[in-house]
């Protein structure tokens, strides 16, 4: 695992995020758009829910036969002139890519957007070995300038405001006239394009992720909105696809099923602007294309999820809808989650990939409001899976002792109705005395509550006591 895990500090990260006025501004700006665009796109497609069902069933079928589809995929990549490299973990994946780059004497590599390369920490790894990775997706380019990691699956620079981007560009693009106007998002985009154009041409290797891998043809599929992925993979000598193993689908038609869901759920469009299929290297007579085509297939803990309590998570197609609809994500942004994947999907996937000891905070940091499950295009029961992690933690005594102790005392009473009735009747009377004005401004054992809110005092006698009195008076 190369990218450092900062998830145990979720609460501290969250506090920092809540105090970050730029971040809060950026989050407030993005929330509404994502939700409304998805809603409009979904409403226009009457068969949307039926499509979700077939996508879910299809994923379950693929996961049940993952070995077969991966073998078929490999065979067809080779048949179309490509190479397949199997990587058990991040280190292996990075090493495979480094070897290809070194063999081709690559000084720089152009990169399309890839969360898997974030998972392996590829940029840092290559840079440390003298190879300059250049992110070509606008959002990725921005955060690379800032020395940051993505804070969202499909909008990596979601946490940055336009004003911050302008400042970053002025700082980084020192060759350009300082008096130039960068007020409009389009002028920022034009400047990034101009800066990237040369870099595309000079990069010896292009690396992209994959949204899907098609077993029947050995093709990889990427969706982008800027076309940067196409330049990345066609202009370089070698195109390296880095993908995790669960991205494989049986046929082109199956890929179409997921493509119909993906853009609608992710960005509220019927399709992304570019959907690019790549099969093998340049053939004789092709006007362009890479001379070599490589696929690095990363496991990194996923095969351990097969057949277990978290297999459903492997259905994920990385649309980002769960985080777009998550009240916790919208309060703190993606970086607070402390690893590659934020939001509800990150809260389930992170402990699966880095271990519950390091990722266990995340499935706890949910109100279980259920909106993520409601919008998931492949119907992943995210709250249930988060609860599964909480159970795993409980079984292994990983929660703080105070939580376990408190729960134990409460359970001791709750399992004894008579004792419970007497004890709570007394406790509520006492609490009532403390909160004579109707509410308490501070409570020693619930300072988390009273730091931000008043605590409404109990009425006094419990319902069960009063009901008994009512029964007796009849």
């Amino acid at each position: 695992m190369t990218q450092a895990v900062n998830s145990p500090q979720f609460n501290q990260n969250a506090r920092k995020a809540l105090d970050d006025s730029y971040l809060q501004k950026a989050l407030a700006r993005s929330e509404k758009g994502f939700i409304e665009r998805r809603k409009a796109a979904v409403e226009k497609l009457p068969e949307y829910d039926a499509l979700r069902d077939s996508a879910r069933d299809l994923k379950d079928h693929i996961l049940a036969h993952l070995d077969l589809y991966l073998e078929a995929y490999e065979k067809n990549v080779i048949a179309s002139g490509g190479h397949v490299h199997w990587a058990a973990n991040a280190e292996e994946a990075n090493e495979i890519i480094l070897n290809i780059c070194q063999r081709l004497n690559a000084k720089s590599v152009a990169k399309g957007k890839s969360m898997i390369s974030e998972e392996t920490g590829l940029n840092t790894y290559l840079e440390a070995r003298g190879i300059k990775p250049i992110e070509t997706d606008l959002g990725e380019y921005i955060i690379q300038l800032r020395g940051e990691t993505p804070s969202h699956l499909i909008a990596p620079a979601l946490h940055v405001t336009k004003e911050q981007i302008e400042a970053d560009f002025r700082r980084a693009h020192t060759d350009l006239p300082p008096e130039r106007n960068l007020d409009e998002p389009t002028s920022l985009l034009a400047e990034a394009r101009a800066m990237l154009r040369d870099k595309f041409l000079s990069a010896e290797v292009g690396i992209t992720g994959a949204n899907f891998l098609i077993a029947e043809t050995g093709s990889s599929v990427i969706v982008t909105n800027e076309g940067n992925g196409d330049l990345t993979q066609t202009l370089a000598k070698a195109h390296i696809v880095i993908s995790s193993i669960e991205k494989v689908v049986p046929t082109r038609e199956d890929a179409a099923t997921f493509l119909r869901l993906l853009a609608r759920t992710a960005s509220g469009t019927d399709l992304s602007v570019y959907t690019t299929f790549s099969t093998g290297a340049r053939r004789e007579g092709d006007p362009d294309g890479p001379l070599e085509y490589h696929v690095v297939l990363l496991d990194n803990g996923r095969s351990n999820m097969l057949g277990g309590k978290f297999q459903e998570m492997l259905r994920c197609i990385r649309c980002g809808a769960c985080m777009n609809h998550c009240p916790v994500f919208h309060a703190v942004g993606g970086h607070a989650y402390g690893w590659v994947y934020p939001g509800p999907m990150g809260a389930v996937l992170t402990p699966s990939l880095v271990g519950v000891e390091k990722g266990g905070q995340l499935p706890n940091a949910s109100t279980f409001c259920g909106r993520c499950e409601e919008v998931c295009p492949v119907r992943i029961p995210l709250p249930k899976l988060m609860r599964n992690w909480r159970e795993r933690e409980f079984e292994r005594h990983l929660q703080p002792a105070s939580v376990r102790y408190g729960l134990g005392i409460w359970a001791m009473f709750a399992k004894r109705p008579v004792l419970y009735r007497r004890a709570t009747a007394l406790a509520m009377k006492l609490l009532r005395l403390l909160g004579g004005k109707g509410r308490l401004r501070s409570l020693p054992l619930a300072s988390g509550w009273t730091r931000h809110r008043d605590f409404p005092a109990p009425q006094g006698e419990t319902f069960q006591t009063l009901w008994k009195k009512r029964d007796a008076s009849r």
Partner: protein
Amino acid sequence: MSEQATAAVTKKPIRVGLFATCLVDLMRPRIGFATAKLLEDAGCVVEVPAQTCCGQPAFNSGDRETARDLAAQAIEAFASYDYVVLPSGSCAGQVIVHYPELFAGNAVWEPRAKALAAKTFELTAFLSDVLKAMPAARFEGSVTYHDSCSGLRELGIKAQPRKLLAKVEGLTLVEMKDPDVCCGFGGTFCVKYADVSNKIVEKKTASIAASGAGTLLAGDLGCLMNMAGKLFREGKPVRVRHIAEVLAGMSDEPAIGEPER
């Protein structure tokens, strides 16, 4: 179910076991009495068997064994009633959705859990869908209604409370922005992740205040206490009640967080 159907036809009174929920039992008994009144006015016989908690805090904390023990306790306590009614969407969801899950594959308890689930209802769903009751209440003023998450997403409760409120004389319902977005309560979440929870409830109270309604209603006391506590702290003059209090005509009693008289 056939026995219940027969009971309805022969007008034999329906026996309802009232599961008050631990929060209502301990914090705000008047919601329990409002619930009983609504059921009795509709012709039900209401009983309150000895009860504690549905087990949701244990279930959501990962303590499946305690959750199962408390579920079994509730299944025993409420087995004999025609129906079981709870003035809470999240506790009703625990019984209806999660009890059968907790005992999946258990030859003795799974059928019992399913039987209880089949006759258990959240209050507004029971009044509206089963009893088709039209409570006759008056309320002068405007209210806004927050859809608590579990009731909404586990049980599909959205239309029922609004349908019932539409029958209350003098009441105007003003929808807030995003009534279906979480208030940030989340059980122990609001204490464990206090600052995140606070950010979420701040957005909620802003929507509530912007609606201009004088009273906030919802069907779950946890969410109500969270929002009431925040409204008080922010000095926003919105009164907060459980929907049952308004439907039962008990709106002259102190609202949540107001001193008892």
